[in-house]
């Protein structure tokens, strides 16, 4: 019951990591092409609006493909159940000023990660829906088209802010990054950041 400090434990499966890679690539392409379509001073640098638009549309339609792939991964479905559920200590963790101290024990995912997952899925679905309205715009009355554009524009700005935050958190935590890159994390990291999960996965 006292494994050495460099023991590593599995965190994400190969399937999960490939889904994360696919989704992050698509989202980055969507943010890039969206920025070109949306910000005049940026769009002018590359022009070719028709091509940029098609790349944005094709990438957007690949999002539901990835969402379906996610359902096929058993490990991801299990992680989604964990992300979905807030236990009472999660609220306490969010409110606490010492949430990194380990005083409040955290499961495989902390409350911030849970909220980020829900936000990501919710925003993807809303952006997909409003994007689809713009794609099939002739099927909708003007006020719906304008409304969809409004939601798509402002929500995507918020998504960019959250993506920057997500990348910033990863940038500051090499072990968390290794978890998504290689699939495993040091047990010592798990004990510090995800104590209850470490108890589950600690080699016996």
């Amino acid at each position: 019951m006292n494994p050495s400090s460099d023991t590593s434990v599995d965190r994400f499966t190969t399937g999960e990591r490939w889904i994360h890679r696919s989704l992050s690539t698509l989202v980055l392409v969507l943010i890039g092409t969206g920025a070109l379509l949306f910000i005049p001073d940026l769009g002018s640098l590359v022009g070719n609006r028709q091509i940029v638009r098609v790349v944005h549309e094709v990438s957007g339609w690949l999002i539901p493909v990835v969402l379906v792939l996610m359902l096929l991964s058993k490990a991801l479905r299990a992680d989604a159940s964990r992300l979905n559920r807030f236990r009472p200590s999660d609220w306490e963790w969010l409110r606490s000023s010492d949430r990194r101290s380990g005083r409040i024990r955290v499961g495989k995912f902390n409350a911030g990660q849970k909220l980020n997952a829900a936000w990501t899925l919710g925003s993807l679905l809303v952006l997909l829906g409003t994007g689809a309205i713009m794609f099939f715009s002739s099927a909708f009355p003007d006020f719906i088209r304008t409304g969809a554009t409004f939601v798509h524009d402002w929500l995507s700005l918020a998504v960019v802010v959250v993506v920057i935050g997500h990348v910033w958190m990863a940038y500051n935590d090499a072990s968390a990054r290794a978890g998504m890159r290689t699939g495993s994390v040091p047990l010592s990291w798990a004990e510090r950041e995800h104590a209850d999960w470490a108890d589950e996965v600690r080699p016996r």
Partner: protein
Amino acid sequence: MTDDIKTGSPVGRRVVLGMLGLGAAGVAAGTWLSRGVSDVVANTAPGLASVIPAAGGFRIYTVTSGYPEVTAADYRLEVSGLVDNPMSLSLADLAALPQTQMTKDFQCVTGWRVDDVPWSGVMLRDLLNEAGVASDCEALTFTSFDGAYTESLTLEQAMQEDVLVATTMFGQPLEVKHGAPVRLYVVPMYGYKSIKWLSGIEAVRSVEPGYWEVRGYDIDAWVGQSNGRSDEPVV
């Protein structure tokens, strides 16, 4: 895992469903909300609209790489085709023609509108009268020195009072992104008719569909009566 599942409430699902609900409400109310946002931005941070078009302002579309540019000295507007006097007009030549000013809205077919834009330039009708349109001319083909964009108008449409060969916006010479030094401004039609970086006007026998028109947009692009839209008329 077990304790998350057993003791937890499904907050994630509630967040996702809540966002879907808010998204749908935003779509339903977005037309009014975006007007409100534009008004607030215009009154508090007018510069924002040029950086983030969602805050209300022109969205800049180009169909080629970057913006085409030409020096004022090199610029020429060629008026050719079925005309008695083909012309090659410099900016000075255009400035010497009678100038027309108007303050009108700009309505894009994708839904955005910029209210009360001051424009000035030469009325297309004045230019065509100068060139002398031949009797077998029924339409005009406009070309841009971006090398790709084209537009069209019937002669009847072109001879209305509200079609401007514009050289200024907001009291300043046109900015490059708005089509400097010369663009068309077709008041009663969607913005794609108002070709930027205008370099050629050719009088022809029949309408040749323009860049977006061969890509599915209506040739007669009346605001509120084409492209399946019902926007308020431009005033």
